[in-house]
């Protein structure tokens, strides 16, 4: 490993407030949705008593729908900010449409698979992370579409009826299939969470940058020499 001279420290603003707010709202809502969703699909309880006095699953469903609206709000906020925010959060920079982006992605993947190859830090998203986050946002969108389709079929106003009919048409006119797809998303997020947490911590340890603090305060602290040659510098 190269000798570390620790010459220059870069300390810069990376994530603007809307990105951070959207991220933590998304985190809170996805975790709530995952737990309540699991319980809705597979309730492990069945308490005896007068049904009119108990509202266990009703409450859980209420929390699920509440968190569903929060997820929708955070998604819309993030979507909007991708068009007006700083260069680190723009969809235009995140979409891997250029060849060199794919080269970087491959480069980072290689250094993860073979730890002997140097793993670099970035000021914004790492190239691979970038790709995965786009995928996660697609997953969020998919959960929202399937979730609100299911939700629409529990309301009977003209608005929800229309929305529900559209949603159902997307998935072959079978509500149970929508349930299945929606439930599989729970596992998509569970897998992502494991990998996400690991790579965040991995980046902190290996490249000596801030990550979690950056998602909270917005500012990133990184040694210049840890930065990838292609990384954006201030």
């Amino acid at each position, binding site marked *: 490993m190269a000798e570390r001279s620790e010459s220059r420290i870069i300390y810069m603003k990376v994530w603007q407030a809307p990105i951070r707010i959207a991220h933590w709202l998304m985190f809170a809502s996805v975790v709530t949705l995952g737990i309540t969703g699991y319980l809705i699909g597979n309730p492990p309880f069945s308490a005896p008593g007068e049904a009119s006095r108990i509202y266990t699953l009703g409450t859980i469903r209420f929390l699920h729908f509440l968190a569903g609206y929060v997820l929708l709000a955070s998604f819309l906020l993030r979507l909007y900010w991708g068009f007006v925010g700083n260069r680190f959060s723009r969809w235009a920079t995140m979409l891997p449409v250029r060849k060199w982006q794919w080269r970087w992605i491959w480069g980072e993947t290689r250094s993860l698979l073979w730890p002997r190859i140097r793993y670099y830090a970035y000021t914004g998203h790492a190239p691979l992370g970038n790709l995965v986050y786009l995928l996660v946002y697609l997953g969020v969108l998919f959960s929202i579409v399937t979730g609100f389709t299911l939700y629409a079929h529990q309301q009977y106003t003209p608005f929800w009826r229309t929305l529900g009919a559209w949603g159902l048409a997307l998935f072959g006119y079978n509500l149970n299939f929508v*349930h299945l797809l929606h439930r599989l998303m729970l596992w998509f997020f569970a897998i992502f969470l494991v990998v996400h947490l690991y790579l965040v911590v991995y980046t902190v340890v290996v490249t000596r940058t801030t990550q979690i603090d950056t998602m909270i305060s917005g500012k990133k602290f990184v040694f210049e020499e840890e930065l990838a040659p292609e990384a954006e510098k201030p």
Partner: protein
Amino acid sequence: MGDGIQTLHTWERSGLLDDAWSRREFLKFCGRMAVLLGLSDAFIPRIARALETAIQNRRPSIVWLEFQDCAGNTESFTRADSPSVAQAVLEAVSLDYHETLMAAAGHRAEEARHKALEAHRGQVIVVVEGSIPTKDDGIYCTIGGKTALQIIREVEPYALVFVAVGTCAAFGGLPKANPNPTGAVGVEDVVRTKPVINLPGCPANPDVLMGLLVHYLVFNRLPDLDAQRRPLFAFGKRIHDTCERRPHFDAGQFALAFDDYGARQGYCLYKLGCKGPETYNICASLRWNMQASWPVKAGHPCIGCSERDFWDRFTPFYERLPEVRAFGVEQRADRLGGTLVGVTAVGVLAHALYTWAVRRAERKAEELAKKEGEAKPNPPEG
């Protein structure tokens, strides 16, 4: 209601019905139809009059076609144990052709159909039971030498509306289930020039068919439909939202087996695979067999028989969700997901250990190199 009573006297005199069906039964039937269609009791005389007029004029003509079916809708309609008022009324109105019910057979039956069609061009209510095969030119279902497809084409110009009774006629049903050897489709997939109304169900509820007819006779137009061409008066809500066990669902009280405490208490059948949350139908309010009961009341979870592709999408019937085909085997979604999360966690852990080991080896090598460098007077150029 004076008007209505007048009507009912005519009804009795008409002698069209068996003695078993008294004026009282008929009135009850009209009342039920009013409730079904969401009308006030002021409509009961109107319904009675409309039916009576229809019976006197013997119109509209109804032709009942059977294709790839089990005659279950017919069976349900006639209710072998006690013929219903609905059946009597339908026959009285003008059921001109029905293979299972009519006395005529062979050429004479075909003739009856032709006569009915010619006499009521553009006014025939065509009830279809069973799916229509399309593979290999539809040879898998032929009647009198004609395929189901040909018969539909032949009848289409004469029809006022096609009413697909049962899930097979509406959505293809069981014959369409994977792998669909006959290329079966529902009526809506082959009829092009006339409206189609779907009354899915396995079987469809006979009262719903009567409701449709009554609606047409009283208002002279077809009822409002949803996006899948189902009348809203019968398919406007999910079973789950009209089910008498619903409070137990919201409370989180479930039967876990067919003979446990929860089952005896009448708890919700969700965990036994109930598809009520995914199924639009009127079973919970209208019920079956003279309004006696319906599956969930009887203790069996709804299997969603009136939904599209229920045989492929709702099975296994006693599981909430279908299984997922992955890695060559069918598995539960949660088993699959849980396994993948486990594999990911193990992978991540292995990666961490591997990285740690590699880094440690590198550090050791560095230290060694340093020590050697100290020992030698001339360090290697960098």
